[in-house]
């Protein structure tokens, strides 16, 4: 083990030199290929050259040198985009390592989310969603991408169903036999207790 450690240390400087920069530090790729557009206009001067997917996408702004005042949040679900490049003051995400507050200028992080409450703070208004699970990608340029499978505003949740579910899964855990059943029951308990504390807390 010690021999491998010294090999790793020797390899470090080479790895650092070839390390890839983060996506926000690279210059944006050019959205139109100059040689193609010239060749196109020579042959078909009347029509515009076709647009490529890259020209529809807005490149991410590079990391600014001073911390920006607002955090830009993209909150997406598989079937809808809840918030699209919305500028907010802070978001609190339910990461597996605990409730994480994200302010502008947050260090670039990737965090896995656990079932919990996501709150978006903009000025004096706070919007809360219950997120089932997902990921949050915080980029160095104060952009945060939150992706979740299911996210509902708290007032759409029914307290009775939550408590019934909690009781049901607690009893399933005690009667579970295989590892898989135990895991499923444990997931049920985690989700329902998170729902419960979201509704009562």
């Amino acid at each position, binding site marked *: 083990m010690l021999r491998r450690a010294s090999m790793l240390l020797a390899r470090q400087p080479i790895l650092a030199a070839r390390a890839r920069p983060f996506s926000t530090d690279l210059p944006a790729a050019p959205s139109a290929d100059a040689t193609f557009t010239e060749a196109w206009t020579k042959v078909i001067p009347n029509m515009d050259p076709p647009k490529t997917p890259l020209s529809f996408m807005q490149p991410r702004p590079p990391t600014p040198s001073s911390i920006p005042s607002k955090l830009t949040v993209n909150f997406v679900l598989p*079937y809808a985009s809840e918030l699209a490049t919305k500028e907010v003051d802070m978001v609190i995400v339910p990461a597996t390592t605990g409730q994480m507050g994200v302010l502008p200028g947050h260090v670039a992080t990737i965090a896995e989310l656990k*079932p919990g409450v996501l709150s978006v703070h903009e000025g004096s208004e706070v919007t809360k969603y*219950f997120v*089932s*699970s*997902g990921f949050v990608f915080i980029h160095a340029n104060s952009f945060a991408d939150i992706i979740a*499978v*299911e996210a*509902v505003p708290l007032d*759409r*949740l*029914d307290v009775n*169903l*939550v408590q019934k*579910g909690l009781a049901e899964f607690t009893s399933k855990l005690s009667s579970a036999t295989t*590892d*898989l059943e*135990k*895991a*499923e029951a*444990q*997931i*049920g308990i985690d*989700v*329902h207790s998170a*729902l419960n504390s979201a509704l009562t807390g």
Partner: protein
Amino acid sequence: MASNAAVPFWRAAGMTYITYSNICANLVRNCLKEPYKTEALSREKVHFSISKWTDGKPEKPTIRSDSPEE
């Protein structure tokens, strides 16, 4: 080097992240209040139609979906 990182309990039980995430999402959907609940459950229904091809021609397609009633 039996288990290096602390694996989550569902991974240790043999479940993948996608399965875990879908189970969590289903549980949350089941706890919704009424009009939202039916919308959410219908949103996640999966239907697909399969047709087998023989001699370059498709046979009659069969429609499959997640829930057995349809």
